[in-house]
Every structure is written in C-alpha cells, then in structure tokens.
C-alpha cells in the first residue's frame, strides 16, 4: 500500500504539470484582454504599456515557466516564511492578481473560510441526510418511503440550484422573512446572538446545496444497498440467526459503504471549488464567486491559480478514494 501510494504521488507530478500547461494554453488562446475594462479615455499607447508591465509582452513559454516558478517555488516559500519567520522568499515575485494587485494566495486564503463553511457544511449535511434515506429506501424498496425518497432525489437532482436558491429566497426571505437573503461575510461570531444569526444566514445556501448533494449520494447508497441485500451472504447471516439490525448494519451496510465512500471522497474537491452559482445567488464571497469574477475581469493569474488548485485537489482525492477502497475492501490489494 505504501509503495503504491508513493508511486501514485510520483505519477501525479507529470500529470499535474501537463494539466497546468493545458490550463495555461487554454487561457492564453481564449479571447479577452485584461485592459479591455479600462476607461476608453486611456490612450492606446498607455494601454500597451500596461500590458507590457503585466508581462504580456513575453513569449508564451517564458510566461508559463515564470508562472510555474512563482506558483511552485515562490508561493510555498512565502507560506514557509510566514509560518517560521524566515526570509527565504525575500525579493521573489509572487503570483499577483491583475484585478487587485495583491498576491493571489492571500485572496484565496481570505475567501477559503466562507466556502468551507457554507459549501463544506452543505456537503456534510447532504451526506448525513443521504445515508439514512438511501439505507431505508433500499431496505424497504418500493415502499411509500422509497417512492417519496426517489421523487425528492429526482427533484434535487434535476432542479438547478439557481432555481431552488431563488425559490427559497422568495419563500423564506421575502414572504416569510425568516432568513436573510444575503450572506453577510463580515459578520463576526462573538456572542450567542451572533451565532444564531450566523446559523440563520447559513441555512438557506446550505440547504440548497445539501439537497443537490443528498440527491446524488442517496441514490448511490440505495443502489449499493440493493446490490448487497440480495447477496447470498445476507441470507447466510439471517440463517445464522443474526438480528435484523446486525444483518443490515454490520453485513449489508459495511459492504455497501465501499463504493459510496469513494463517491463521497471524489466529491470533496467540489467543496473547495465552491458552488459558483449558489455563491452568486446568496452573495457568499467564496472561491466560486472569486473564480467567476476573475473570469469576467480577464484576471488570468487568478483563474490559472484557482483552476490549478482544483486540479491538485481532484488528483489528490482520486488517490485518497483509491487508498480508501484498498483499506475497506480486503479483496483489493495494491502491491
């Protein structure tokens, strides 16, 4: 298992390099100009100078390797310096956002907590809702519970979040006035009332995303449970005289969790990716919202860095899912 993990990690290096190159080339080929948003009163010569100062005059391979050096060397060294008070990174150029002129990493660090709180919480809630629904739906297949569960899953799966989000805002924020329609990022939780407010403003975005996640995972859980419920070893367990609880929770559930855990692990990078649409609807200024504004503004270093971070997370969680599979299923050995 250890050698397998190391081998996979080594293999991830060329994979990620190729991904970074593809992202870079795609962004470079895409039309758009970082100075396009500037007022028309600025003369073209000045605009050209701005472009030069942003480094756009250099040939593409120079820009690519420069970005690579900034991202892989300068940024980690800065983090190291901040943590331990050293001065390795002094004088090194960091990845700078063209919009704000501040380092991309700093902005990401500011935005990450909002995304993790809202989107991460929605994922946790989604999983917690989905697992019992999937288990009961499968155990009582075709019962009214299963039918309703299937219907809600279909709904959650097929109705887009920009619709459910707006619908919730209309019902609960506008008509009923229970929850605020806009997520206040500057809100500081320092008292019980502040905490209650935080919970209230989180409920709607979390629920919108949790419905979507739960719909997906509960379907996987149900299918996997049904797969195992019909197996002979379940009949064996019943013939042994095990209680129904043991049969379902020990025998069936543990075996059914293997594929479901893989699906859950593979979904984790999406949390960091943020939910672009939902964050827009509820005005949560998380990573998804950061990405979309960066795309609008042609802020190429920001887009490039964010996309690459997502790629790293996806590769990493793929590996984690594979390792989990090996741990959970004794039939799978990677050596």
């Amino acid at each position: 298992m250890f050698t397998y993990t190391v081998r996979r990690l080594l293999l991830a290096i060329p994979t990620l390099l190729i991904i970074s190159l593809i992202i870079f080339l795609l962004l470079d080929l895409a039309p758009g100009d970082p100075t396009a948003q500037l007022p028309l009163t600025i003369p073209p010569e000045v605009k050209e100078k701005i472009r030069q100062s942003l480094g756009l005059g250099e040939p593409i391979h120079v820009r690519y390797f420069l970005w690579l050096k900034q991202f892989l060397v300068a940024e980690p060294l800065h983090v190291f310096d901040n943590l331990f008070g050293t001065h390795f990174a002094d004088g090194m150029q960091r990845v700078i956002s063209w919009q704000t002129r501040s380092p991309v990493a700093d902005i990401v660090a500011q935005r990450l907590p909002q995304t993790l709180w809202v989107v991460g919480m929605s994922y946790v809630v989604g999983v917690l809702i989905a697992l019992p629904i999937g288990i009961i739906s499968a155990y009582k297949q075709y019962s009214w519970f299963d039918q309703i569960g299937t219907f809600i899953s279909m709904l959650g799966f097929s109705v887009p979040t920009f619709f459910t989000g707006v619908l919730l805002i209309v019902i609960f924020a506008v008509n009923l006035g229970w929850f605020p329609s806009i997520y206040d990022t500057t809100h500081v939780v320092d008292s019980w009332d502040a905490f209650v407010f935080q919970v209230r403003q989180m409920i709607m975005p979390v629920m919108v995303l949790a419905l979507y996640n739960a719909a997906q995972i509960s379907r996987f859980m149900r299918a996997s449970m049904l797969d195992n419920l019909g197996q002979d070893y379940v009949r064996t367990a019943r013939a042994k005289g095990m209680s129904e609880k043991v049969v379902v929770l020990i025998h069936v559930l543990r075996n059914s969790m293997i594929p479901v855990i893989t699906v859950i692990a593979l979904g984790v990078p999406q949390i960091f990716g943020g939910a672009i649409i939902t964050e827009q609807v509820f005005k949560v200024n998380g990573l998804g919202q950061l990405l979309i504004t960066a795309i609008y503004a042609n802020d190429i270093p920001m887009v490039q860095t964010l996309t690459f971070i997502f790629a790293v997370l996806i590769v990493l969680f793929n590996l984690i899912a594979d390792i989990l599979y090996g741990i959970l299923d004794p039939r799978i050995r990677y050596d």
Partner: protein
Amino acid sequence: MLDDTPRTLVKVRDLKMHFPIFAGLFRRRVGEVKAVDGVSFDIIEGETLGLVGESGCGKSTCGRAVLRLYDITSGSISIDGQEIGDAGYQKLRPMRPQMQMVFQDPQASLNPRMTVARIISEPLDEHTTLSKAEKQERVYELMDAVGLNRDFANRYPHEFSGGQRQRIGIARALALNPKFIVCDEPIAALDVSIQAQVVNLLEELQDKFNLTYLFISHDLSMVRHIADRVAVMYLGKVAELAPRDALYSKPLHPYTEALLSAVPEPDPNVETRRERIILRGDVPSPAHPPQGCNFSTRCPKVMDICHQSDPDMQEVEPGHFVACHLYPPTTKPTTKNMVASEANKSIQQGE
C-alpha cells in the same frame, strides 16, 4: 433405514411458497409463481433425505422455506416438535441454532469483508455467552473438524479455493451444534474431485455429530451416494418419494423414470444399451401450471384423467410414495409416518 424407533425430526405438511408477480403501470399483483405448491415430507433423525429435480422445479425454494428463510404462503413445518411455519422473525431467532444451511455458492454466501474466524464465530457471538478465548477455541475446533488449517483463521474468503470456501460454509453451519442442516446444492459449484471430498466430509460429520440432512441436488448419482431416501420434485410438487434403492431400481413415476434414464453409466457396454426417455417440450411456467397433473404436458404415459385431476400422493409400496394416476388408489391413503395425503387432497379441492 427405518430402525426400531425412528424419530421424526422434520415434519413438513402441505408447504406452499408462492411469489407474487407485479406488473403493469401500477405494479398490481397479476399472479404468482408457485415455486413450491403443496409439498409434504418427513425427515427422520440421522437420515439424509435427497431432494432432486431439474432446474427451476423449486428445490432450493423448498429448502429455504423449510428453514423459514422465506415467509411461507401456507403449510406447516415442525422441527424437533416445534412448529415454525407461522413463527415470526423474533421467535425464529432462538431456534436458528438447531437448523442451519449450507449454501450453493460458497463465494457469495460468505461476507467478503469478514475473516474466516469472524464468519465462523459470529453465530457464537449472537447465540452463546462464550468468552473470547472459548470462541477462539471453538473456531479452531470447527476448522479442524472440516479439515481447514488453523493458520487460515485470519484470512478472507476470497483467498480460498472453492472447496475450501465450502468447508468454511460447513464449519459456520456447524458452529452452534445444529441438528438439522439443509444442504442446498453444496457441491454444484465445485470441481468433481472436490465434490467427492465435500460429500465425504458431510457424511463424516453426519456420523460424528448425528446430523440430519436435507440434501438438495440435481446430481442423481451424488444423491444416490449420500441419501437414505429420495424425493423427486417436479414443478413445485413432489412426484415420488421412496427409499433410495427402491427409487433407483424401480422408479414408479414416469418423470422419475425419465430423469433416471438421463444418468450416464460409467460402463460403456451398459451405456450403449441405455435407453433414454426423452421428454418433449419445456417445463411449464410455475406461474401457470397446467390443469390436472403438473407433468401431464410432457408425460409419455399421459391419460385423459391426467388433464383433469391432480393425482394424490399415495403409498404404493411400503415407504414408496408416488403421485400418479397410473397407480389407482387401491389402498386407503395411509398416514403412517410419511405423507398425509388427506391434507393434500383437501387443499387441492379447495383450489
């Protein structure tokens, strides 16, 4: 076979297991598959009753229904004097230790995520209060009994061969000292060389622990080897039930004759002279069994009466029961210790 004091361990009367068929837009119940349709037999303590028949005739369903792994449609099953036909799940659980099952597919019937030791000891956790060390000792004992190396205790089922897995399944079934074991085609998934080993193991264990078997198989020669009495099933019903030798030397039911004629002879001289009775047509669907005798659509000796009424089970010779119109009911239906044909009749008339 029937010694001085034959004690009936298992008594099955008019067992029916019908599976509903749902179809159409609203999944209405449109009919039922009569997998087991009025089966009655007794099993005497310490004997092996072979249950034979072709694929889909309801053998396995019958075996599972006898252990109440299904909720049966109707009928009565009593094991060691205890009626379990209508017992609920909770009531059945404490009775499970005395009746166990060896399954057909040794791979699928073992939980892939449990080690051998856990698979064998799980029934002990549930039904006994043994300490950890005692359980461990019991697991080793059982592994010895079925001829598995003790070192294999912490391995997973997928690491074994088919024959070894079946030994695990047998050890698991034996863990709680059962009296009655249903062997549901325990050798069908194994190589011929391994089949003999497993069957011999089953026989050894029977002598050692005084077990009673219901041995389900489609392998007639294997049943001849292991069974004391044999029941032949066709389309959810028992066609013939007789002591082994009587059945193999002088089959009475036309279906049994046809079935036995299909068994190849190892001696080439005999084999060339063997006359096969080839049945025409397919087995009717158990959802729509034919009127009258179930076998009437394929029977080479079919008569008019066969299409009209279903023959009752009757004792033609001592211990030899057959359900066929070829043997007119000359004697009164007996209820000796085998089949209550009266019960059969009343239900069939009720249909």
